[in-house]
Every structure is written in structure tokens, then in C-alpha cells.
């Protein structure tokens, strides 16, 4: 057994609302793996895409403020949402070699920007905790379940920011879920954009892009999708019925957060993983695979 791991935790706005099952299953998984997780008190929204779209200084300042709040809590900062992760890492990257920008941001937040290691949950599970240990923690192997791992945009792009895995051909999600005995499929759309925040302003964009993703996963023979971002989840799960209506193709494809599947494999009871919050119910699939 390695040293006991402990992290500070930035859930982000979605995980307290539309992506709550990601939060519930993250806490459940970390408890089962005996990894410490302490939420940063009074964190703010990271600004996400709308802030950096029109106001870089605001975007950097919001993230810098969150980093300074996180510095009060022990351990590297664990981030679940791919978009928050990207914004926090981008802020560190932009300020690292730009003293003038750093000065502006420090003036805006009236304080210094502390050094804090920001890690996505995938990195914590694959690298800090380790695949070997993850394999040992599995009490209910997910064998027989065919998973299409969907990365989306911000877990790997641009190459100098997330530093999570290879930019164009990552395998970190496949390796992590592979540790549970699940089968992963090879498919074309795992790095394509889902339409992200157009879900509010231009949902037609989401229906097209997310529709292509679902079609690709289905063509590869996947039983389900696995994601690590609440925005991707919203588009693929919440808007799936509309996509089916627009395209005339029935997918009925459950979209899991990676922590839901991992926690299930690590023996966390299904009732505690927020499966009932998903719009496309995964219960028939899990029953069929004898995983309930």
C-alpha cells in the first residue's frame, strides 16, 4: 500500500446541479479507494467558455481566485469537469511565462496566484493511484460491457495545457476502465467536439455534433459511452431523445461518467451512483450484463 493520497477538490458548477451524479460517484469512488477528498470551501465558477470567449482577463482572474482559495486546502487540486480543468490549467500556463499578465491578474484578485498542482481525476486514478492498484480494488469486474470512451476536446487539447496524455491518440480512459475488465471499442469520434455550450444558445449545433458521436459509437458496437465531462454528458444524455427524433435513429445508449463505472466495479452499491438521475436509464443494460 502506497502512502495515503489526499486531494483538495474543485467540483465546478455542473457537479452541483445537472451533473450531480458525477459528484456523487466521484465521492463514492474515492471513498471506496480510500483516497482523501476535501472540497474547496466557497469556490467560484471558473468562467468556463463564456468568460474566455469575450474577456481573457476576467477568465484568468476567476481561475486565479479559485487557485488561491484551493491553496487553503491540503493536497493537489482534483478537478472532475474537463472544462474547469482546462480553464485552471490554461490560467497557470498563460501566467507562467507572462509576468505582465500575472501582474494584471494579481491586481484584479488583490493577491498572489499560488502554485498549486491541478490534476484531472483521470490523472489521479491512472498515475497517482495507479492501474495496478485499481485492478486490485475491483470486486465486481465489468466484463462483457463494451464501452466507447469519449474524450471530447479539453482533456487533451491544446497539447501544452492538459498534459494528460497523447493529444491525438490518447489511451488514458481506455486504460483506466480497462482495469475493471470492461471491453473498450475502437471508434472514430472519441476526440470530436460534442457542441459544448451551444446547448443553450444554438441547440441545433449540438444535435448535429452529438448525433454524429452517438452514430459512431453505435457503429463500433458499443453498449454505452463513458465521459469525464458534465457538458459532454449533458449533450449526449440529456439531448439524446431530441437527437433520436431529429435523425430517426434509436440509440438508447446510456452515457456513464467514468466514476460511475469505476465505483460500480469497486463495489459501491448501484443505488449510490446516481443512475436514476440519468435521462437514458442504464438499468436495463446493467441488468442484462449482470452488473446490478
Amino acid at each position, binding site marked *: 500500500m502506497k502512502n495515503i493520497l489526499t486531494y483538495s477538490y474543485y467540483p465546478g458548477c455542473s457537479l*452541483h446541479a445537472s451533473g450531480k451524479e458525477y459528484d456523487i460517484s466521484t465521492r463514492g469512488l474515492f471513498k471506496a479507494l480510500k483516497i482523501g477528498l476535501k472540497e474547496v470551501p466557497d469556490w467560484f465558477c471558473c*468562467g468556463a467558455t*463564456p468568460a474566455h470567449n469575450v474577456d481573457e482577463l476576467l477568465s484568468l482572474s476567476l481561475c486565479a481566485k479559485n487557485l488561491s482559495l484551493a491553496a487553503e486546502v491540503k493536497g493537489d487540486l482534483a478537478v472532475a469537469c474537463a472544462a474547469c480543468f482546462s480553464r485552471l490549467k490554461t490560467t497557470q500556463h498563460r501566467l507562467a511565462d507572462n509576468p505582465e499578465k500575472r501582474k494584471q491578474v494579481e491586481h484584479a484578485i*488583490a493577491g498572489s496566484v499560488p502554485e498549486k498542482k491541478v490534476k484531472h481525476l483521470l490523472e489521479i486514478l491512472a498515475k497517482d493511484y495507479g492501474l495496478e492498484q485499481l485492478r486490485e480494488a475491483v470486486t465486481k469486474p465489468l466484463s462483457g460491457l463494451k464501452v466507447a470512451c469519449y474524450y471530447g476536446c479539453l482533456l487533451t*487539447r491544446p497539447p501544452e495545457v492538459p498534459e494528460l496524455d497523447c*493529444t491525438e491518440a490518447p489511451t488514458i480512459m481506455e486504460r483506466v476502465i480497462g482495469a475493471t475488465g470492461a471491453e473498450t471499442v475502437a471508434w472514430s469520434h472519441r476526440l470530436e*467536439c460534442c457542441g459544448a455550450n451551444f446547448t443553450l*444558445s444554438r*441547440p441545433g449545433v449540438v444535435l448535429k455534433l452529438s448525433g454524429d458521436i452517438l452514430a459512431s459509437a453505435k457503429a463500433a458496437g458499443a453498449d454505452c459511452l463513458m465521459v469525464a465531462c458534465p457538458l459532454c454528458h449533458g449533450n449526449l444524455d440529456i439531448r439524446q431523445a431530441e437527437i433520436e427524433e431529429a435523425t430517426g435513429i434509436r440509440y438508447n445508449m446510456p452515457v456513464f461518467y467514468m466514476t460511475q463505472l469505476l465505483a460500480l466495479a469497486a463495489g459501491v452499491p448501484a443505488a449510490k451512483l446516481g443512475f436514476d438521475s440519468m435521462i437514458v436509464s442504464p438499468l436495463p443494460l446493467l441488468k442484462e450484463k449482470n452488473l446490478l
Partner: protein
Amino acid sequence: MKNTKMTLSTETMNLDFVRKVEALSGSSVRRCFQCGKCTAGCPMRSFMEHPPNRIMRLLQLGQWERILAGRSIWYCASCETCSTRCPNKVDLAAIMDALRKLSWDANGPSKESYVQLANRLFIENIKTYGRQYEMRLGAVFNVKSGQFLKDLLLGPKLLSRGKLKMFHSKNKNITEIENIFNRIEEMRKNSSKF
């Protein structure tokens, strides 16, 4: 841009604007050699009247008014594929951010209003509550965009699953965020650099 007459002169080539874009984005405009890789990988190209490589060409030619008048910059999803794949290190995603900022600050002439409205409400929520209040975001968007029935069936589905909160309390440290907004505004009053 087939059949479009393009007049180039020192008057149409407002390079001050291009320099502003370069300063804001930290990326060179001149480095683009039109290989088209950004457009080939862009998931939003079919929604844009000017695809990404043409945006670069128009910028190089100082034809930025045509860019700002259109919808393309607001249809960029910030997926970062272009910046990742550019063989000559043009950070096109950052250039898109800079173009949007300049258009936003100038209350630009773009016809795309829904994306800008969504951005505005999102940022307002941060200032008022500290975090996103998804229920309010959706409801106010529908009212202000005049699409009262948009996603009408989605609301109850999400509410019944506890995915939307009817009420949302403000962060108790909300004044710290208000101060950040105020200081940035103050900085902008004193300098045109930001």
C-alpha cells in the same frame, strides 16, 4: 468568396486592428500560410460563412470588418483542434477569443445574438451568484431571446431528477467576486490595454 470583388488598398487594410489581435492573442497572424488544416479539422466549419483558414486570410488582408460582421467567430466552439494541429504554430483558438473580445467591446455588428446573449447571462450569473444557476440561465435566455417554448419538455425531466435547482443561494464570499469585476472595470477605465 467566389464572385466577390475585393478591393485592397492601404485604406482597407487597417493593420492597427490586426496588431491588436496579435497582442491580445499572443499569436502571429502573419505566420499562417493557408494550408487549410484548421478548417479540415474544424467541427463547426459547416456552420460558418467564413471557415477558420479564411478568417486568417481576411485578417492578413486587413479585411477584419467582414469577419466581425458575420457569425463565424461566435460559432467557434473553442475545441482547440485548430491550435493543436497548426503546422506553423498559429494559435487560432486564441485569435478567435481576441476577435470576439474586440467585437464584444465594440458592441460589434455581428448578426449572431443568441451566443452573445448566452455569454452575457452566464457572466452575469457569476457576478450575481458566484456560481452558475442553470435554471435561471435557461429561463432568462428563453425570455430574452423570445423563445418561450425552447426546451419546455426538458425542464420537468431535469427538475424531477434533481438536475435543476429551483432556488440557488449566493456564495457567502460573493463580495470578493464583485471586487474582481470592479477592479477589472477600474483597470480598463485607466488603460486601453486590456
